[in-house]
């Protein structure tokens, strides 16, 4: 038996085991995945029990405290708050995924192009990223969102957020590619006659995978952060029960003065689980992407 075959038979059955072992050594990744997974599962299972229309105003008696019929009560406009939490969580996660994916796609491409080709291309891309990174994103998003507030849908919101989500990935991926560009295997590929796109897609991207995943999670959490911020200002999709809009309504219709605790706690709790979960996944992935940070087993 050759050495390679020995190694492969050794490794195959232990893959799951290895993953388990890795998660045990990287608790922050495990806890983070658990927290975000819990939210997604809650929203998925919840959608079997409540209809999306129940998250709209006038679907339930207004201002009801939690009870058997209304698990989380209702707000002053008669939204079933359990349904709001179920669909709001999903909308928020979905928005983060869309905006994060677009951000990493555009940002990643710019980063690759900029670092790989260098010269004036690099200078122009890098400079525009620099300038745009200095501008506080939320302020620009406020202008965009206030101009297109009427008739905004959650998907539109995701696209608006994505308009600025590419800056950080572009910067981070450029830095990584700059390091990798001169690696031995890239030179080998170049000498073998591989074109720039072949090198980018078959040599660089696979090697950057852990890094790209980490960047993606960062982009998702930044997108969620921005969207909740905009929605809490009332600039989100007006007819969708997103978590941020829920916070906006709660503040605007003075839930604190009405002492409606069931209106206040759920969206805040869901958002905190989401943010802390994403943060922990991020920290965990950081360790995966930079093995130097890895703890000794």
């Amino acid at each position, binding site marked *: 038996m050759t050495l390679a075959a020995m190694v492969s038979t050794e490794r195959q059955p232990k893959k799951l085991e290895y993953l388990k072992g890795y998660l045990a050594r990287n608790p922050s990744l495990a806890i983070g995945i658990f927290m975000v997974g819990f939210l997604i599962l809650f929203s998925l299972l919840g959608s079997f029990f409540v209809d999306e229309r129940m998250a709209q105003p006038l679907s339930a008696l207004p201002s009801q405290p939690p009870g058997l019929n209304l698990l989380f009560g209702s707000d002053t406009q008669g939204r079933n708050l359990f349904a709001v939490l179920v669909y709001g969580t999903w909308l928020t996660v979905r928005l983060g995924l869309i905006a994060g994916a677009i951000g990493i796609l555009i940002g990643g491409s710019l980063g690759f192009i900029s670092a790989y080709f260098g010269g004036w291309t690099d200078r122009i891309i890098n400079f525009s990223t620099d300038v745009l990174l200095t*501008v506080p994103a939320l302020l620009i998003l406020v*202008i965009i969102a206030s101009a297109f507030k009427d008739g905004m849908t959650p998907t539109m919101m995701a696209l608006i957020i994505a308009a600025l989500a590419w800056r950080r990935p572009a910067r981070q991926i450029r830095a990584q590619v700059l390091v990798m560009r001169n690696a031995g295997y890239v030179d080998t590929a170049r000498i073998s006659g591989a074109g720039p796109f072949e090198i980018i897609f078959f040599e660089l991207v696979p090697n950057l995978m852990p890094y790209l995943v980490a960047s993606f999670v960062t982009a998702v959490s930044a997108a969620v952060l921005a969207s909740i*911020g905009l929605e809490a200002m009332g600039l989100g999709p007006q007819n969708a029960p997103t978590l941020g809009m829920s916070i906006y309504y709660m503040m605007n219709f003075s839930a*604190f003065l009405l002492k409606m605790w069931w209106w206040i706690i759920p969206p805040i709790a869901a958002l905190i689980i989401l943010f802390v979960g994403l943060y922990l996944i991020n920290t965990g992935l950081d360790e995966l992407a930079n093995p130097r940070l890895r703890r000794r087993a």
Partner: protein
Amino acid sequence: MYLIYLTKRLIMLFLVVVTAATLNFFIPRLSDKNPVLEKITEMSESSAPGSVNMQELLVIFNERFGLDKPLMQQYFDYLGDMLTLDLNYSITSYPTRVADMILGALPWTLGLMVTATLIAFLLGSVLGALTVWRKDMRLLQFFVPVVMVFSAIPFYLIGLILIYFLAYKGGYFPIGGGYSLTAFPAWDWDFISDVLYHSILPGASIVVASIGIWALGMRGMMVTVQGEDYMNFAEAKGLKNRRMFLRYAVRNAILPQVTQLALFMGQLVTGAILVEIVFGYPGMGSLLLQAVDYLDYYTIYGIVFVLILAVALSMLILDLFYPLLDPRTRSHRA
């Protein structure tokens, strides 16, 4: 060398401000909404029928705001206005100038933000430094991961939690506002203490949410600094622990923290805006929210421009002062 660096930085500042101002100008124009028309419709609805000639008013308003000129002409007028800090009039509260509205709100925001940020910066840096220096303090080792998790939560959510537990449940603090409704604004102790009392919760939410950022950065730098030769030298000289900590370790570790402070300004501004909205604090955030609610573009333009200018300027100032703080960066440039 320094002059080239300075010019480069100034060009960068100029470009950042112009880019932001350009986005600020063109994005609202992409919308088919017309704030002037809305203002006039509202005016005609609230006055006796027939008393307002809408067509005539529209022409007058458009002329007043320069909206009848070609778009490019408007753009250059606008750029000129912004660069000379002429922020025009508010559309919703017409005779009021945007600059006056901002001047009324800015002290609140600056007072709250600068104080809270400095407190968080100091507490976080000390905390981060001590976790590395005093490995024997168990409680400290537990504390830092906790505040780091807090830094993942946005300011305003922490604000809402604080309101829930300390104002709504506990009743120790007011739920919102900059000062009590019954208070009379004046420069006396009663009013000042009232303002301070109202600023505790919003300030605390900024501190709680950002302390972890500084603690983490400081911890990383302290670990690096501890491995340096001069630390061994100081120890060999038999210096007191306290002197080694303050003069040798912290003094060197704090420099990157100061850079971070500048980089975080942008984030702090936007974070503080939402804190103000949550607490109903009478600063720039609340002003922006009002402007957004009424689609008062000129006020939005003005607020966004002033905030961007503040962020860009604070970064420039820090960049320029950095060589004074860190002699090593000076020698590099010479």
